[in-house]
């Protein structure tokens, strides 16, 4: 009983300690709190911030940053959090506490600042204008295999749009494979170019499907253009290999020797069994003759 009491006491102490550390204020020195965010709230920074948020924060803080991830955590969109200065949030992300890891060791300063910008926008979406439609064109260079995306305004003026993040993919069997960088920004002429990597396997004739996307953008609606090119290495067919009879073959591709051996054994054994069962009827018949 004394043992049990000790255990209970330790448990209560441990829990209260945990609760204590959760409720104590997180002191941040004045000079840290006064730090200014060097990044402006620009689509480019926001996109970077979102990418990092999706990669490192969502697991605990949740998709909406409301603190409802895999574990219960602080809401990053409520008033209490949002009224902290950028400097305070920067310090907290960098140093971490309890289950919050110190991200200062993992992320560059600019990256942390961009996450803070993203969190500001997430809490107040009205900070950015509603997204617009764009026209997305795809052209290819043949000499050196390259893909150029051109982003133009969707109206009749067709003005080139700069600083738009474009994603490039190659279609694979079960999804899309990214080529180029995580973010590729259009230049002043509205164009961005990536090179097609070597040794990508296509279909049996070497065709690959190129996909260019504008996605998850703050300023523009999602857009997608595809193009099929004979740029890949042809997929070597092993049809002959797989269609022959072998141990690894399908049900109807058993080796002949196995079919003969297995079915031969089954036939012999079951012939004996059938013969014995037939004999049971003979025994019965023999008894009837005796009666007459």
């Amino acid at each position, binding site marked *: 009983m004394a043992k049990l009491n000790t255990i209970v006491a330790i448990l209560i102490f441990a829990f209260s300690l945990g609760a204590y550390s959760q409720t104590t204020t997180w002191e941040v020195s004045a000079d840290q709190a006064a730090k200014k965010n060097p990044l402006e709230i620009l689509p480019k920074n926001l996109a970077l911030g979102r990418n990092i948020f999706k990669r490192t924060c969502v697991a605990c803080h949740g998709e909406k940053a409301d603190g409802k991830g895999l574990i219960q955590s602080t809401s990053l969109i409520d008033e209490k959090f949002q009224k902290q200065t950028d400097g305070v949030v920067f310090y907290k992300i960098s140093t971490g506490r309890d289950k919050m890891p110190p991200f200062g060791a993992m992320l560059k300063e600019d990256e942390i600042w961009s996450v803070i910008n993203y969190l500001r926008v997430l809490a107040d979406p009205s900070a950015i204008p509603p997204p617009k439609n764009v026209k997305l064109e795809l052209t290819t260079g043949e000499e050196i295999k390259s893909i150029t995306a051109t982003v133009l305004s969707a109206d009749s003026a067709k003005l080139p749009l700069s600083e738009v993040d474009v994603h490039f993919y190659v279609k694979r069997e079960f999804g899309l494979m990214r080529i180029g960088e995580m973010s590729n920004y259009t230049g002043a002429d509205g164009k961005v170019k990536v090179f097609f990597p070597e040794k990508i396997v296509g279909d049996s004739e070497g065709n690959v499907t190129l996909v260019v996307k504008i996605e998850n953008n703050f300023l523009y609606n999602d857009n997608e253009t595809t193009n099929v090119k004979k740029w890949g290495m042809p997929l070597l067919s092993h049809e002959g290999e797989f269609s022959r009879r072998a*141990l*690894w*073959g*399908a*049900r109807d591709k*058993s*080796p002949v020797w*196995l*079919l003969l051996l*297995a079915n031969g054994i*089954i036939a012999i*054994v*079951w012939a*004996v*069994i059938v*013969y*014995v*069962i037939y*004999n*049971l009827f*003979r*025994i*019965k018949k*023999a*008894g*009837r*003759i*005796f*009666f007459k």
Partner: protein
Amino acid sequence: MTDLYRKEIEIKKEQFQYLVSDLNSPLNRTGSSFKIWIGFLLLLIAMAGFMYVRQLQQGLGTTDMRDIASWGLYIADFVFLIAVSLVGSLITAILKLSNVKWATPLTRISEIIAVAALIAALLIIVVDMGRPDRLWHIFVHGRLQSPIVWDILVVNTYLVISILLLYIPLIPDLALLRKTMGHKPKWQQKMYKILSLGWQGTEEQFRIMNLSLTALMVIIIPVALSIHTVTSWLFASTLRPGWDSTIFGPYFVAGAFMVGAATVIVTMYVIMTNYNFKAYITDEHFDLMGKLLVLTSLVYLYFNLNEFMVPAYKMKSGESAHILGLLVGEYSVLFWSVQILGMILPILLLIIKPFRKPKPLMIISVVVVIGAFLKRFLIVTPTLLHPFLPVQNYPESYHHYNPTFSEIMITVGSFAGIMLIISLFIKLFPIIPVYETAHEKGFPNEIINNS
């Protein structure tokens, strides 16, 4: 002269009737202890059934089988039961074909053990399935190249042959039951009548019966060897430390004969004491079965030596974790207990004649049976815990396997099911062959037929 002859016939008839009523006595005596025993078995089976329904509802998560140890107690139980079932062929076919006469009273015991163990084995393999509703896929989509398909074929074939080998020698006894069990319930009399196939004991009937029996006894030996060889191939045909062995077939068969002999000894002891069959299952029988157990154990010991000594001498890098785990590591206590208590010590003791008396022999056999079951566990589980490919990013608990209460209860239920089948069989049919015993005691067929 004729009077004397007639008198002799009368005496023989009386003796025969006494023999029949003696051997059929278990059918007529159903005391309360038997009912309690059946109730106890049904309770165990009901608990296992409850656990299985729970497993069906919640999935195999109710077991401790996880990604690494994906086979556990159920598969160990399956291999054990297949091993036990091999005794049917050992006693009825191998001994009989070698003209060993003393084993006659044990044939039916060993055959009913074989049939009951096979039924339980077929059930436990379904229990091990996560989706038993897809069992029919094996028949529709199964590939002849897969050892699993061979196993299903051979186990079912062996079950059919075992049932026939149990049934056919029973026919003359059923004819006797048809005549003497007039006081039994209608369904039971009807069952005897149908199953006895109108047996009259004519020469023609005996000829056909003996022909059938010989055919079965010849065919059951290769089938019995293949049933356990194919079961061993389920392991040996995969590239795993400890399973990647060329002698797995004979290793399993040798182990099966050992545990089978031990199981028969335990069963015949229980039957002998319970039904007072000392006159039929004599000390001589125990002595000879003890010698048979020593012989089969020695063969098994030889295979064990090969199975563990050679890999342990080489200590191949991939296998060393597994072998060291057995010899000095996590499973060493269990391993050495099984090898010493379950194999070496029984051999040493049973060489000495006093230990082959019924009671000590029975106790030793119980130890052998328990050891054999744990040995199957040692064959299945430690290997799975040491795969050749490195295991990463699994929870710590996945690296160990400890059967859950649910698994243990279902396994116990399978044993209870076997005992239930045997117990009910004893109450419905003579467990010691009446006709064969009478025939060997020199009663002529006329007396047997006309009594």
